[in-house]
């Protein structure tokens, strides 16, 4: 059997968007190193429930790093210490007996706290509705092989399409910019022939919406790339800027 650990936690507790928050201290005994980080929080919540306290709220669904639901600041790092790893993919074997871990929600003006570690990421959906799609009605598509697409274009497009919309990029950015998120979608669609006809309208609408939502500007800190669980490169942002400039000044 693996040796069990005692873990100390400082967890941000906040009852609602308008309530004041504070850190609370908890200790979780008997943590198995094979547990995932969220399973450790499950155990904490079971203990809190039985002792009559409210459990710590956090969002989660797939618990395998693909849905983008989870996302918390762990010791000041979005999704914790490991590269290309979402919170739900972290395991307690990365920690040692007696460690203290500080857990907070994403902090960004555009992502108000709902409760404890849960924030409202609806602005991402509104950026997408502004133009993050190809306008093709169901049934109107040509045969799937009618337009060949070079393999390397698709592979590159895929690298950007892999975004899980977790919001870590915003949380890590000193300006709370959503440029990596927006740039990833702009780049995914701009790199494919299917996305080309609308690329000007798309980039303009999405960038405008991003600003309206209260996200900051990008000043090339690259913190977003460092925390992205899918390893999306900041070349997405460069591509988005090029698209934007072309849309604003380019010829038809």
């Amino acid at each position, binding site marked *: 059997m693996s040796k069990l650990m005692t873990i100390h936690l400082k967890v941000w507790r906040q009852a609602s968007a308008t309530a004041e928050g504070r850190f609370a201290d908890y200790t979780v005994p008997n943590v198995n190193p094979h547990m995932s980080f969220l399973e450790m929080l499950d155990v904490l919540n079971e203990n809190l429930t039985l002792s009559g306290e409210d459990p710590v709220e956090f969002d989660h669904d797939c618990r395998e790093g693909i849905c983008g*639901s989870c996302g918390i600041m762990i010791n000041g790092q979005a999704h914790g210490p490991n590269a290309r790893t979402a919170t739900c993919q972290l*395991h307690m074997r990365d920690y040692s007996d007696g460690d203290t871990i500080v857990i907070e929600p994403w902090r960004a003006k555009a992502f108000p706290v709902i409760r404890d570690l849960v924030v409202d990421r609806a602005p991402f959906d509104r950026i997408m509705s502004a133009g993050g799609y190809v306008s093709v*009605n169901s049934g109107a598509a040509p045969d799937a092989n009618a337009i060949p697409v070079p*393999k390397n274009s698709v592979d590159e497009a895929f690298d950007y399409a*892999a975004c899980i919309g977790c919001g870590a990029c915003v949380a890590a950015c000193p300006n709370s910019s959503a440029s990596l998120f927006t740039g990833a979608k702009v780049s995914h669609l701009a790199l494919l022939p299917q996305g080309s006809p609308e690329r000007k309208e798309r980039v303009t609408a999405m960038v405008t919406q991003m600003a309206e939502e209260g996200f900051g500007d990008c000043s090339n800190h690259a913190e977003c790339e460092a925390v992205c669980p899918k390893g999306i490169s900041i070349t997405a942002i460069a591509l988005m800027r090029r698209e934007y400039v072309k849309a604003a000044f380019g010829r038809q």
Partner: protein
Amino acid sequence: MSLDAKVPAGPIADKWDNYKNTTRLVNPANKRKYTVIVVGTGLAGGSAAATLGELGYNVKAFTILDSPRRAHSIAAQGGINAAKNYPNDGDSIWRLFYDTVKGGDYRSREANVYRLAQISNTIIDQCVAQGVPFAREYGGLLDNRSFGGAQVSRTFYARGQTGQQLLLGAYQAMSRQIEAGQVEMFSRREMLDLVIEDGRATGIVARNLVDGKIERHSADAVLLCTGGYGNVYYLSTNAKNSNVTAAWRCYKRGAYFANPCFTQIHPTCIPVSGDYQSKLTLMSESLRNDGRVWVPKNAGDTRRPQDIPEDERDYYLERRYPSFGNLVPRDVASRAAKKETDAGRGVGETQLAVYLDFADSINRLGRDTIEARYGNLFEMYQRITDENPYEVPMRIFPAVHYTMGGLWVDYELQSTVPGLFVLGEANYSDHGANRLGASALMQGLADGYFVIPYTLGNYLAGITPGTAGDVSGEAFRSAEEEATDRIQKLLNVNGSRTIMDFHRSLGKLVWDHIGMARNADGLRLAMDEIRDLREQFWQDVRVPGENSTYNKSLEFAGRVADFLELGELMARDALEREESCGGHFREEYTSPEGEAMRRDDEFAYSAAWEFNGTPRDAGLHKEQLEFENVKLTTRSYK
């Protein structure tokens, strides 16, 4: 009520066209007068909401999660089938149809499956046009692979993230309709009840998960796209929020629940590591193309795998099924693993695992080739288990993965409640007693993009728009009251056991008795024990917090309460079905060699259960399955 599947007349290949040619249409100018509720925005719901919005209907869409970009569908890895026959290897609509009916062990409705195969190709066209980055070959055309033991390569895939990319495609199409004002999105909402007025579905009540307020929403029709109920087992590969609640409440309002005991247990998942375990992770079955499954020959052999010599290993799939070997279908592979661990030959700390070994393939093909094929899966495995599968064999074990059962629907995807349509994994329709790999994504998208736009129109054309659903009326008021009372009741128990504790106990009962192998005694026992557990739940559960704030415990409590009823119905259904077919393996009905034995003369039907108080009192209705095109044979993989 008699079950009329409303299968159109004509030869099987013409049925869908015949239907479309004669169906009633809603005049374009009238479409905006109709409101349609879509509950759930996974592949089925997302594609339906987008398409109905494009057609001009007013759509109200609901999801439990914070955004329609997320849903359980996002986790699908392997791919989506279609009968394009791009590889020129002999595939056809007929073959896809045939494979699906046979794979489902002859417990699905031929006409639905044929339509699914017909539509499959259009789905790929649609998704490519949306910008879904399917894998391509160097010439720029789409790549296909063979999947789940199929003899043709008909699976389209997007790395190991096909579900994600397809869902994002549907989400983007839906986002466009949100921008256009055709779809109104209600995120962080949980449907708690179906509202029926004058015998037809006219709305839902839903809880706003942020502030606990119960909302009433009316519509001319309700589409239920709420996914499968695999989480009844507590541990499954389903996302944590997957549940049966919406479907179950519809069942209690009169929609029949079909074949609840048809559940799929996937052979290659990462085994449970401890009792804190919260969910299981699937390892794509493509791994069985190059991995060899084995256990030590001697029970209780605790040596490290590399220390067990070749002649003391039992490659039991290759031994028992020489012609299919490691590629036998999911249900067969799962049962075979159980047989080994039951006999004490399991491996690893818990002994509830078997080895999936790549050593031979690495020797034969080189590590680079294996890495190119499965690199991301190997990485995922190592991340979870802290073991390197290039050096030591993977440990795998079966886990609940998919539910073939669900609300009964006719050819139009309409349930037994008029105006309530059911799409995707939530319905029972196309996969019979066992689903083939890469067919669920196909079905969800077929239902949403290409079936419902026609069949819903046929229903709505018969209704005067705007006549449905007065939210201040009696039906809405009482549905809201019931939902509120139930929440209050859950909060008031204030007992001594946690929700998860009850869920785990239920999961164990369902897994032990309604899992990979079932028998009459076990099923009777399960019915009683699940009933007792349900009674304890309502006396002793502790639900923390309040209703008026974000409270995930309260959400989960409501879902576990429903699972505690469903579990008993599953046992009842499994007891009634005295045969072995697909994922339903009754130990009493096996061949002398221990293989599954179907009993077509008596059980070639879908069992549709009607709510009648407690689960054990549910009423059974049978839809007899007619096989006019496919000859019933015994599946043999020897």
